[in-house]
């Protein structure tokens, strides 16, 4: 039995089991959630081991229309999602032990994990679509978890945006099947490389709309800041890692597995795509400056950072793809840490706005420390790993002859500093209570995952080759 399926099914079955357990059995539920996440994540690692050991760089499974495929690109996404899911589960034990609705939360939490892995391992466009559409519905109950007016409104916006995107995607997929005769991902591109008509451009536009909603490409991004009303584990994992990376992953599949860099270059769409993505990079950062609610600031930062990856992908160069993949990894690690810290601040002090954070560094020293190091990463400074992804993205800009991209990244980096560093600095200002309130078990559960992630980011920053040769070279090798 292929470990791909073990990964997907164990999470789905785990979700169903948790849904059936009564609300009161918290300990049992926690145990099952953690066990399921571990089982699922370890299955993904097992698949990764086979793929990256170069014995068989590809693993496929077929049953009628249900095709699954584990290639380096799929694994980059699956590894990130799977591993971070485990850490988020641990974090959530610290963040929400008193929540009254944990049964539905954890049920959909696990279901979403299975569906995310389904997206990663999808072997053809139809399977990808099915899981993509299902992800919207499995994450909706998580977004509206708090059941407030604001949450319900955010959920409604989320569904509307996602369904419109999925609709465009479905038409695109049907049209692709018609034009190319097949929907399966292969080593080359699906579409015939000589199909350079206007119809192909429309097809691309539909795909970009379809995946662009989840990838928070402007102007399809408006659901994301609203979705921050969800509990922090949801905002962190889903809306900084799983769901949004699904959009980026989808676009990577479109660019490389459906169209292929050659066809896109021939169609002459590269400049337009780059402008679209660059705009989001800059606009996201600019809007982030003006946000006082911490999670919203992080949301707009996510919007901006996702387009870093898209810029990389849209340069249609191997440097760009390298930067995009590596940044997917780095951004996920760092952004989830930032969200976890924000959630810890909120849990311990009830404060959600940047302006309220004055002097809290004394109360939450570790939280601020971890937040600070992670912020360095967002700005792209050594020794945090994100420096390398930014470096390669800038290299991609130069090598493909798009030097304005360099400017985009530099400006965005400065803007990032402008809205991240003040948060940390705020913590040192003013007078707050001196005693640290971080000693309790809940905070421990929340901060240990952060610490692990930050350490990993630092190690990766110093030795990028740890992930580079496997992930990045593997992906680039499969497409160029």
């Amino acid at each position: 039995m292929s470990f791909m399926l073990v990964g997907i099914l164990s999470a789905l079955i785990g979700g169903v089991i948790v849904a059936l357990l009564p609300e009161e059995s918290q300990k049992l539920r926690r145990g099952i959630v953690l066990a399921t996440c571990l089982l699922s994540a370890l299955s993904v690692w097992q698949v990764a081991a086979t793929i990256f050991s170069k014995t068989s760089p590809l693993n496929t499974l077929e049953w009628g229309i249900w095709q699954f495929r584990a290639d380096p690109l799929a694994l980059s996404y699956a590894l990130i999602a799977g591993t971070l899911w485990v850490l988020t589960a641990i974090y959530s034990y610290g963040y929400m032990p008193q929540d009254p609705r944990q049964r539905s939360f954890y049920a959909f939490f696990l279901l979403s994990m299975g569906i995310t892995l389904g997206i990663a391992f999808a072997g053809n466009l139809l399977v990808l679509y099915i899981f993509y559409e299902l992800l919207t519905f499995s994450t909706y109950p998580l977004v509206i978890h708090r059941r407030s007016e604001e949450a319900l409104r955010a959920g409604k916006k989320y569904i509307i945006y996602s369904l419109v995107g999925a609709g465009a995607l479905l038409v695109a997929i049907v049209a692709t099947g018609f034009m190319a005769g097949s929907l399966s991902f292969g080593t080359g591109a699906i579409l015939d490389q000589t199909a350079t008509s206007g119809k192909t451009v429309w097809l691309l536009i539909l795909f970009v709309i379809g995946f662009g909603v989840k990838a928070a490409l402007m102007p399809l991004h408006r659901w994301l800041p609203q979705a921050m009303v969800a509990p922090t584990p949801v905002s962190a994992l889903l809306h900084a890692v799983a769901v949004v990376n699904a959009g980026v992953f989808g676009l990577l599949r479109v660019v490389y597995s459906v169209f292929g860099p050659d066809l896109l270059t021939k169609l002459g769409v590269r400049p337009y795509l780059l402008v679209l993505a660059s705009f989001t990079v800059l606009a996201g950062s600019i809007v982030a400056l003006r946000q006082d609610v911490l999670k919203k600031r992080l949301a707009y930062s996510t919007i901006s950072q996702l387009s870093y990856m898209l810029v990389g992908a849209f340069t249609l160069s191997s440097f760009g793809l390298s930067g995009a993949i590596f940044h997917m990894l780095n951004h996920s690690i760092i952004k989830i840490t930032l969200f976890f810290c924000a959630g810890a601040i909120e849990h311990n002090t009830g404060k959600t706005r940047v302006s309220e954070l004055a002097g809290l560094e004394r109360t939450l020293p570790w939280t601020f420390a971890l937040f600070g190091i992670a912020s360095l990463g967002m700005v792209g400074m050594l020794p945090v790993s994100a420096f390398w992804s930014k470096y390669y993205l800038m290299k991609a800009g130069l090598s493909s002859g798009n030097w304005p991209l360099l400017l985009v990244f530099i400006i965005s980096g400065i803007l990032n500093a402008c809205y991240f560093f003040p948060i940390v600095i705020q913590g040192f200002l003013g007078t707050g209570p001196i005693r640290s309130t971080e000693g309790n078990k809940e905070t421990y559960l929340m901060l240990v995952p952060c610490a692990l992630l930050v350490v990993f980011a630092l190690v990766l920053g110093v030795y990028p080759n740890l992930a580079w040769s496997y992930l990045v070279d593997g992906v680039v090798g499969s497409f160029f």
Partner: protein
Amino acid sequence: MIQENLPVLLVVTLLFTAYLLPIFTKRRPRIIELLVVTVECLILGGTLYLAGLIARQGRAPIIYPAGGWPAPWGIELSVGSLSILFLLMIAGVGLPVAIFATDGITWQLRSRQRVAWFFTLYLLLAAALAGLAVTNDLFNVYVFVEVATISCCALVAAKDDPLAIKAAFRYLLLATVGSGFIFAGIGLIYLVTGNLDMTFAFTELSQRAYTYPHVVRLAISFFVIGFGTKAALFPLHLWLPDAHSAALTPASAILSGLAVKGYIIALAKILYIIVGPALLQALSIDRILLLMGMVAIVAGSLLALAQDELKRRLAYSTVAQVGYIFLGLGLMNTTGLAGALFYAASHAIIKACLFLAAGAIISRTGKERVSQMAGVGREMPITMGIFTICSFALMGLPLLSGFIGKWNLLRGSIQAGSFLASLVIILGSLLCAGYLLPVIRTAYFVPAGTTTTKETSFLQISSMLILTVFVIVLGIAPGPLWNLAWQAARDLLGG
């Protein structure tokens, strides 16, 4: 002997039992209910047997001359894949709805006698629809259409309620006008071709059509208007919201689920068998159908959005979904037509189940409006769960039967070169989400006070569960039914 005469026996059994039921008026309703359920099971069995027969002879239809008199002098029945598909729909939806109806119908109709009459009408409708499924004769179509219309109107009026009677009267009026159009159309075809048997009429028509182009156009228009009125094609749908929302729950389920489809399938048979794809395209009828379908989808969905009463919302949804089927009829390729037929079958099951669930909720909680639905998710979790799954299926979510129909309609649209049609299909799905998701959201996620309402009875839940299981199974393993629809489309288009 039974096996040879099975095609006609299916219709006759239903008719016979329908006329038998009033004998039991004075007795306990249980006998009546038992008879109905038995008959439906028999029909299901008979259909499956016929399906096996057809499959064995390479999917060619069984031609059965009634009374042994061959066409064109006698009435001929032709049981092909399309007939089997529709018969399966009739039995597959009719049986669970009948089971649902047996629970509480005596109370709802307020008298034992009326129970017999209700089920008589129910079986008459089933008989008429079965007749429409198998017949190959034009006038036979008219007879069954009339029987079906009267049964439908009477079913609406069965609820002794001023609103229902008013709706039934309006339905009768408009439906009779529709019947008039159909009759005129039949007359015109007879005039031009001298034949009432569909296959023979086709042969004659393909020669004569260019001599009498206007007569043929007129006849087709009459058919579309006539059948369109009965199938609630926008803008001929005006009777449906009142009728389907005012009727008893099982009646609404059957009417929205089966009756409306019966007329569409009859129209499809007439258009494809008698007029033929070539002539339809030459006269641009296919584009008209496509356009009317698209308009119906958008208009019906928008109107549904505006309704607060749950049953009215579902009724307008039927108007929209009928548009999908007409859209598929206008695509003129096998994928699109098969998609339309599969969509029709899928919608029959889904809509019947939605009406049953809505009826159960309304009768148990007294809440008729969507805005009142808060807390239903807690009060009636199983029913609401069924409603949710069927709603998702109607929206065309993958892994459920609606997606298969939607996917193939999209493929058919792209193949026919109509990008607009594919966009309208997606728009229809989005609007469907727009008018169904709020119901689910309000039921589950809007906080409400505590009540003592409990879940519906076992019988009602079982019947709804049967339908829901069909929806899920057809979504995951559509193979057999899809092959049936595909073959039916091939038969219709192959000429």
